């Protein structure tokens, strides 16, 4: 099956330097990809390139089989975009903002009105339909903008910082909504620097730094590429004795074992290592009250990647080959 989105050596520069530099990746239909990176990493430029707003200097992209540089309109007909700034015209009402977009997208007057009513209802904005959007809260603006992105029921969604500026309740609502959209089988590219939402929503993540793709894969795949082991904890109801620690250290898959106030802290090579450690203790009739593995979180992975990038480059300038050496995963087409 054709990937929903693929890029090969996608490169775009501005007078200030390369904003996107040789980015290659591919994602399947129905997949949610988090584009992660600090401000200026190239996330928004990547979205603009994928939607045919910008043309690449080098390389190419295909979105749903279309080349955005050549068939930009065909791509934009099939994609919906939530820009970082909601981009609503404050001189227009909520309904006008949506209906005029629907008309540009080819809806006739009646179906535009019907679809807008549906979405306003869905997003809880029906009562503000005829109010000018001037003075709307960030959350309300995001909801209207998200409704606008969904007017034509797009196959692909580009969401650029969808929760920036939202309060916790607004963030939760938007994340729940994106989860619903992902559940409907849409392909979603989520450009964000909020790791929490990326961790909850994305199947895979692409880490951009100074325009270069530094890592690509699922958090687990990336963690495996970074660390050989993970932390785990065993609850024994009290500190582990030297004898128990010895048993643990002798178990296959246990890299390290130290006593903790409630039992033992371990470093294990995957969850299987922890299972073996528990089996060993139970086999020796040691009471085990609990055991939990602590795989690296998305934040752990992301910051370790950032740390290594900075360690290698010494500053925030570009470096070659770094990501390829240690972050290539089975998911990266390169």
């Amino acid at each position, binding site marked *: 099956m054709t990937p929903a989105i693929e890029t090969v050596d996608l490169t775009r520069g501005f007078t200030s330097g390369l904003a996107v530099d040789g980015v290659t990746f591919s994602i399947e239909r129905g997949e949610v990809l988090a584009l992660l990176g600090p401000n200026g990493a190239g996330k928004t430029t990547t979205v603009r390139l994928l939607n045919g707003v910008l043309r690449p200097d080098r390389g190419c992209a295909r979105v749903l089989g279309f080349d955005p540089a050549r*068939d930009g309109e065909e791509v934009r007909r099939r994609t919906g975009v939530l820009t970082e700034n909601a981009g609503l015209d404050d001189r227009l009402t909520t309904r006008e903002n949506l209906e005029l977009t629907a008309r540009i*997208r080819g809806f006739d007057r009646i179906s535009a009105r019907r679809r807008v009513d549906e979405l306003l209802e869905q997003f809880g904005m029906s009562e503000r339909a005829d109010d000018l959007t001037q003075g709307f809260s960030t959350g309300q603006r995001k909801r209207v903008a998200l409704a606008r992105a969904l007017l034509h029921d797009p196959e692909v969604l580009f969401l650029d910082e969808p929760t920036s500026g939202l309060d916790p309740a607004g963030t939760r609502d938007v994340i729940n909504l994106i989860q619903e959209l992902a559940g409907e089988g849409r392909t979603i590219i989520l450009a964000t620097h909020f790791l929490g939402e990326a961790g909850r929503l994305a199947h895979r993540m692409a880490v951009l730094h100074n325009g270069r793709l530094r890592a690509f894969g699922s958090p687990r795949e990336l963690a495996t590429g970074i660390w050989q082991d993970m932390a785990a904890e065993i609850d024994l109801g009290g500190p582990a004795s030297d004898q128990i620690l010895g048993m643990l250290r002798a178990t296959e898959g246990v890299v390290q074992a130290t006593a903790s106030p409630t039992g033992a802290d371990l470093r294990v090579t995957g969850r299987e290592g922890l299972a073996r450690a528990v089996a060993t203790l139970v086999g020796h009739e040691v009471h085990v009250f609990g055991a939990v593995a602590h795989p690296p979180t998305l934040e752990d992975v992301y910051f370790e990647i950032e740390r290594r990038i900075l360690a290698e480059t010494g500053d925030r300038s570009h470096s070659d080959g770094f990501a390829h050496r240690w972050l290539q995963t089975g998911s990266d087409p390169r």
Partner: protein
Amino acid sequence: MSTGTRVKMDPQAIRTVVRKDLTAVRRSKPIVLPMIFVPILLIVVLPFVLGLIARTSSSQEVQNALSSSVVRDLTEPIAALPEREQMVVLTLGYLLPPLLLVIPLMVSAVLAADAFAGEKERRTLEALLHLPISDRDLFVAKVLSAFLPAVAITWIGAVLYAVVSNVVAWPVTGRLFLPFSQWTLMILWIAPAVALLALGLLVVVSSRARTTQEANQLGGAVILPLIFVGATQASALLLLPWWGVIAAGALIWALSLGLVAFNGTRFTRDRLATAA
């Protein structure tokens, strides 16, 4: 154009962008107020005051005015009129009407500045660029969003001007001296061409500027020379035979359309997004 394949024009998308812009502009006081007050000054106040003064001028003043180098070319049509009509017809029929050409220039300038620079300033441009409207259609829509109001305001203004001028002059003329054929051609044929000429330049200026203020400043550098040239030359248009006015208008149309077409081909959303 960013799209490699030549696509058909999408009239619905163009109409919608125009409608969106016109609706938004109508609700924007900083844009609407200058578009009302400047034309009122030029169309109502100025002809009314100058018409009253001209109406009461002595025959010596008329002779002095006609012998001045500025209006020497106007002597012939004016001299054929009864003496008491000469000054008022000279003022309201020949000297002031070229100012009507300032209206399409001014309205074009204000609306063109809002077309792209205003969108950038309000941070609405990005969302627009992500819609399935071709670069060409977007350019056409933005030109029309400024062109249509510029022409409409000019035409409405011209009717008002003719009414005010005839009313003021009536006590001495006792007849409707406006419109006459060259004046009508100037309004219907040349004014729209002048608006388009300004837009051909200003839409590009607006697309490159980051703010409306910047667009206005850059636009001023373009528009002021046009106003100067227009104001000094337009009286001469009124002395040409009707076909001469049509030919002069055709020249301006050709220049305007050429400029718009040239800038239209160079206009891409990539440049627009990059300038933003």
